[in-house]
Every structure is written in C-alpha cells, then in structure tokens.
C-alpha cells in the first residue's frame, strides 16, 4: 500500500499541490483523475521522487520515501514500475533490450533466464516476436504496451501509469486498461493510474481520487462517481454530451 499524507508542493509561489492525502490500495486499480493542469502528474512525480515534496509524507508499505537517503530511495524505486505518457522507451535499444534492461541492472539472471522473462512479458502485452524492433518502428499503442512490459519485467510491487490511454484508439485503450487491471490483480500490485479518460474510469476505477485545483476534492469508486452530487466532479465527468445522455444526474 502507498499512503500520501498532507503533501504540498509549490512552484514559483504557485501552490500546485495542496495538502493532499490518500491511500492507494494493493491489488486495486487506484485512479487519480482531474482536469488538465490540476496537479495529477505533479502528485505522481512527488510520489516517485521526481519532485521533492515541500511537506508531507509518502509512505510505501511503512517506509516514508521523502525521508529516506539516496540509497533507501533507490531500493524503493527498484520495486517501482512506471509507464510514462510517451512510453519513454530507450531509443537506442531494441524492444528486447528495453524490456530486459531492469533485469540487466538489478538481477543476476543468466542470458537464457532473462530472455525467457523478456519473452514472457512481451507475450503478456501481445508483442511476442517483436524482440528485435526499435521503438521508432512501433506504433503508439505498441510503444505503450512495450513500456508496460518493461515496467512489469522486474516484478514491481508498485506500478505507476501516467495517462496510459492518451493518444490511443478506444480498442487499444481497452486492451491497455485490461492488461493493467489483470496484472494488478494477479500480482497484488499497488497500481496508480493518472487518467482523464472516462472509459477507463468506468471500466477499471476501483479506488478513485478526484483532484481539483491541487486538492483532493472527492474520493470513491466507479459506481459512486456516476451518482455524484459534487458539482466540480459532476462537471468533469459529464463534460461530454455522450456522458450526459447515457448517465444523467437525477
């Protein structure tokens, strides 16, 4: 489990994250949703230490991340897998090398064992046989899936996904969502997903935090979100005519 407690972040006198607290549960798909620029990605970057928190705690299974030394932080990070918005695959490496990279760095597996693990991960994201392709030769959806394969290669305990569906067609989005949900449940991972895709929210939103102007504005799950009385969340969820038509507020 990951718990954030009263985290704050200010950039150039702009208070971007305001006293946010939330519990991200293991084995569940935890979603951070909100409008563009509301502070979702900043919260995620604060959690993984890409930004330093001004105040507050980020607790990974009892260990307060911001208070750890460099080595302690590295140890936690070895348990993290992250799927970036653009994939962030290493351009100079093939798919096989990309997925095998965390194994190269942190395990003493033999070449054959590594290849087995890489092939398993690639097969899991339906990219089997694409080992020798470079990121430049992949489509957007394939890049996301490859990045997911890399994120899961070293059996992470925590999985962070920054807008895994952005720029993807609805069919591929569902494939990615299902993959993330399956992996989360199968390995009891604490998964945190940033999204503003309402399909994802309704499909896989088991534990949701709605961020509004840098604050934790609402928490709940996918069933509660459709009946919300919270005006800001309502405006966010029912922004499209489609949503208004099919899931009208009473």
């Amino acid at each position, binding site marked *: 489990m990951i718990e954030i407690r009263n985290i704050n972040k200010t950039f150039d006198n702009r208070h971007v994250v305001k006293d946010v607290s939330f519990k991200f549960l293991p084995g569940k798909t935890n979603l951070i949703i909100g409008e563009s620029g509301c502070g979702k990605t900043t919260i995620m970057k604060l959690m993984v230490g890409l930004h330093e928190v001004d105040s507050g705690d980020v607790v990974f299974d009892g260990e307060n991340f911001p208070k750890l030394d460099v080595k302690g932080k590295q140890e*936690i990070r070895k348990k993290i897998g*992250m799927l970036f918005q653009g994939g962030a695959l290493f351009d100079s490496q093939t798919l096989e090398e990309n997925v095998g990279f965390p194994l190269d*760095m*942190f395990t003493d597996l033999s070449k054959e064992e590594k290849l087995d693990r890489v092939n398993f991960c690639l097969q899991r994201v339906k990219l089997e046989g694409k080992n020798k392709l470079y990121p430049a030769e992949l489509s957007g959806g394939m890049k996301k899936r490859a990045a997911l394969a890399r994120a899961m290669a070293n059996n992470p305990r925590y999985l962070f996904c920054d807008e895994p569906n952005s720029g993807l067609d609805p069919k591929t989005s569902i494939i990615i969502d299902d993959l993330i949900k399956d992996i989360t449940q199968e390995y009891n991972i604490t998964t945190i997903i940033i999204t503003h895709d309402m399909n994802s929210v309704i499909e896989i939103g088991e534990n949701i935090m709605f961020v509004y102007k840098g604050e934790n504005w609402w928490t709940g799950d996918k069933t509660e979100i459709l009946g919300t009385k919270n005006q800001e969340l309502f405006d966010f969820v029912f922004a499209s005519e489609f949503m208004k038509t099919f899931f009208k507020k009473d």
Partner: protein
Amino acid sequence: MNPFFHIGRYFMLMFRVFSKPQKLSVYWRQILHEINSIGISSLPIIAIISIFMGGIITIQAAFGFTSPLVPLYAVGFTTRESILLEFSPTIVCLILAGKVGSNIASEIGAMRITEQIDALEIMGINSAGYLIFPKIAAAVLIFPFLIALSMFLGIWGGYAMGVSSGACTEYQYVFGIQAFFQPWKLYYSFTKVIVFAFIITSVSSYYGYHTSGGALEVGKSSTSAVVYSSILILLFGLILTNLFFHR
C-alpha cells in the same frame, strides 16, 4: 543565469557521475559502445583533416623560409612542432567538441525531454552515472589514440605534400621531423588531450542532462555545449601551456 549556479550544478552532477557504479558489467558494455560511437566514428574526419592540415602547414612553412640562412629541414621541424604541440591536441579537439559534443548534448537532451532519464531514475538507476560516466571514460581512453593517429597522419601528409611539391627533399623533411625532438612535449600534448576529452564529454553531458522543454531547447543545449566546451578547451590549453612551458 549566474555562472556560479552552472559551476555548482556542474560539480554536483560530476559527483553523481563518479559515484560507485551500480553494475560494472553494464557500465563496461556501455564504455565499449561509447568508444565505438565517440571514437571510431570520428576516425574519417580526423584522418582527412590531419592529412590536409599537415600538407598545408608544410607548404606554408616552405613558402615562408626564403632566407638562405634558414635550412630547408626547418620545414619538417616546423610541421612536426605545429602538429604535435597545437594542431593535433587543440585544433582536432576543437573539431571533436563540435562533432562529439553536439552529439552527446543532443542525445542526452532528447532523452531528458522524452522522459527516458526520468524512467532510469524511477527504476532506481543513477542516471547521471549510467549515461555520462561511460562517455567520459570512453573519451579519455580513446582520444589519445585518435590524436596520436592525427599526429602521424599530419606529419605524413606534410611529407607527401612537401616532397611531391618539391618544397623540400625527403631527406630534409625526415631530418627536420627528427631534429631537436624533446619527448616531454608529447607528455604536454597528451595531457592536454586527456583534459580536453574530459571537458568535451562532461560539459556537453551537463548541457544535455539539464535540458528542459522541447526540440528547440535540445538545439540550444547542443549549441551551448559546443560553445562552452570550445572556450574551456582554449582556456585550459592556455593554463596547461603556462604550466608546462614555465621557466
């Protein structure tokens, strides 16, 4: 921005670059890869420039020595001194600052803006050490060989051009390149090369690593890397020359 800010941030980055490697076998593989990418790929440009510059220096020297009091073996002597002391260690390193420096800054800068460096950090990898240390180590290892080759080809180019154009005889040239040779000058040259190799790779990596924004900023980082590497090469060239030629 305040130059002290950059100097401080540069040394903080270098501290991370030279912290204990996480997995030596991976670093070693990277060093070999960088030796190929930084060193071997620079061979053709260095060879072409060195041969032509050697020829040009020889012809200019022969043209300048019109007095009967100056022996013609001075052509070979001048060519050797120019190439060994300044052309190969400094001018070739300035060329490498352009070729290798811009390449390093744009490669690391592109990795920064596409979140590849963030990905390394989140995996628990010291991204500065993983990305920059192999480049510095490779350059410090391979540059002396590149410059030695440049020296050889420069002197050979001078010989070919000098003898074929009739500027001097073979005997005069060969005698000239051996005359009054002081081996310590090679130590001076190769000390410069090692310092310049470090400057080119570390300064370029610094600018690439701290790129923020988009493609435009990658271009700016690349330009800054070449400009500041070149200035530092000249500055440290002057400092080392003062140290070695101090009476």
